[in-house]
């Protein structure tokens, strides 16, 4: 008779194995048949785990699923689940790294835009679940003496997300929302070029903006904890025509920033390139 710990060890080994449990050893040996093969009984749980985790991933990566179809998506999700089962009962944090998995997934090699589309969806998911933060106002910014500004950081809100890609992943994402419209077929992946995207949650919805390259690097620098001077340098390096005044007023209006702060070490802000 196994101890409970031994039994749970044996079940864990079989439930996350890539192949369904087989009759014989392990946890299956402790299961009563009663008219059904013990392995088939354990397989109910093996299936349930894969189905519900695949559903959870499909909830986050719905555009990826729409692009590749449910069968392809399932195969990818099952591979991802077998590689790294969840470690936290709060499942909203599960699915990070699916983009990297897709980048290394041999069957997805002919779809080079797929990992970045997944990165966009993960950033949207993070934004949806981020804490509420009120936006920094132009008045609060105006109250800071001009000579102090260069050393300060405009910290983006917790729900701000930044994604950049060599592929038009925002257009792809929008096209998957309306599969009947033919929008997906009309996208010329090469001619459309890349996308630099800012995400913010407004109320219950995550909104997406296609921003100029200089502005994207400016925001990414702030997200990484750089000060005003460093962010402006990063923006100008990416785009010599970067217009600081325009970027500042546009983002104050959007409510991109939460606070004006002293610079800190690099933060764990979600910035995906």
């Amino acid at each position, binding site marked *: *008779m*196994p*101890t*409970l*710990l031994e*039994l*749970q*060890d044996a*079940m*864990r080994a079989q*439930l*996350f194995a890539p192949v369904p449990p087989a009759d014989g050893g392990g946890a299956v040996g*402790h*299961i*009563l048949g*009663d*008219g*059904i*093969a*013990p392995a*088939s*009984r*354990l397989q*109910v*749980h093996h299936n*349930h*785990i894969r189905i*519900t*985790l695949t559903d*959870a991933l499909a909830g986050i990566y719905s555009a990826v699923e729409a692009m590749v179809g449910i069968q392809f998506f399932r195969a990818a999700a099952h591979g991802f689940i077998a590689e790294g*089962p*969840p*470690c*936290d*009962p*709060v*499942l*909203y*944090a599960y699915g990070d790294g699916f983009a990297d998995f897709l980048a290394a997934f041999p069957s997805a090699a002919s779809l080079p835009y797929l990992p970045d589309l997944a990165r966009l969806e993960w950033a949207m998911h993070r*934004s*949806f*679940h*981020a*804490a*509420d933060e009120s936006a920094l106002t132009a008045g609060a910014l105006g109250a800071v003496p001009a000579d102090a500004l260069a050393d300060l950081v405009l910290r983006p809100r917790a*729900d701000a997300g930044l994604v950049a890609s060599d592929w038009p992943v925002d257009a792809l994402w929008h096209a998957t929302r309306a599969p009947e419209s033919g929008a997906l077929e009309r996208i010329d992946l090469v001619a459309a070029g890349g996308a630099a995207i800012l995400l913010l*949650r*407004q*109320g*219950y*919805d995550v*909104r997406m903006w296609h921003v100029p390259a200089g502005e994207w690097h400016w925001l990414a620098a702030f997200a990484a904890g750089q000060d005003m001077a460093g962010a402006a340098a990063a923006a100008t390096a990416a785009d010599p025509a970067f217009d600081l005044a325009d970027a500042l007023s546009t983002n104050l209006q959007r409510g991109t920033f939460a606070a004006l702060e002293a610079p800190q070490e690099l933060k764990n802000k979600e910035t995906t390139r």
Partner: protein
Amino acid sequence: MQAMPQYPSGPLPDAATIPVAAGIGLRAAHFEAVTQTLPAVGWLEIHPENYLGGGAPLAYLEAARAHYPVSMHGVGLSLGSADGLDPAHLARLVTFARRIEPGLVSEHLSWSMHRGTYFNDLLPLPYTEESVAVVCRNIDQAQEAFGRRILVENASTYLQFKHSTIAEPDFMRAVAEQTGCGILLDVNNVYVSCENHGWDAAVYLETMSSAPVAEIHLAGHAENRVGERIVRIDDHGSRVAPAVWSLYERALALLGPMPTLIEWDTAMPPLEVLLAEAAAAQCHLDQALRHADAA
């Protein structure tokens, strides 16, 4: 885009108690419909794990909480884990409970976490003296942390272990006696497990009549063919089965009227369908309440 809800200040409504009435599970598919239409149900049940990420889901919950008592029904605490509860998860749940002030706190008689892996499934336990001890130790720890009594729910099971020595309802009753916890009797799960294993549902309910049952769950289940046999699967994806309604009626007669939840978690229907199920449960409850008054 919608405006964010305005939260009223002051105490939450009926914070202390879940009424003896039918309630529904609040799920993401119905966030907008519930917060906008405020349907006439007695209470809402939530899975705390869906809100611990914060953001929009938590904002919806708080908008709903301003109008309804809420029961907090965990799915990830894993009371049956031999390697103990995850202290970080327990601490998050305790903080969350302080924030939403649930009328009831419940979890399952099963395990879903082991050595840092989360299974996203309610896995069955062998019903042994060792399991009683493990579950009691974990319930004691949870009740201590929450500073209150919790309810423990019978799960649907699809397999039994050769070395089980205790019948499930006796196991539930023993755990309640030793820890002082209450029981959340899932009548659909009673039906599913009894059908799957050839147990006697009447005996199960009879045993529960001398146990501290404080809440009832109802849900739909699916029938899967495995080889020559039908295995009933607790998928919460359809209306409550007629046989489960009959069992519910018998449970109310034996146990008396009590808060009853309609659970629906997969193949989500329009809110109206869920409300119709809750109305049907409310009819049974009203009848049981009249009987209780007359007695």
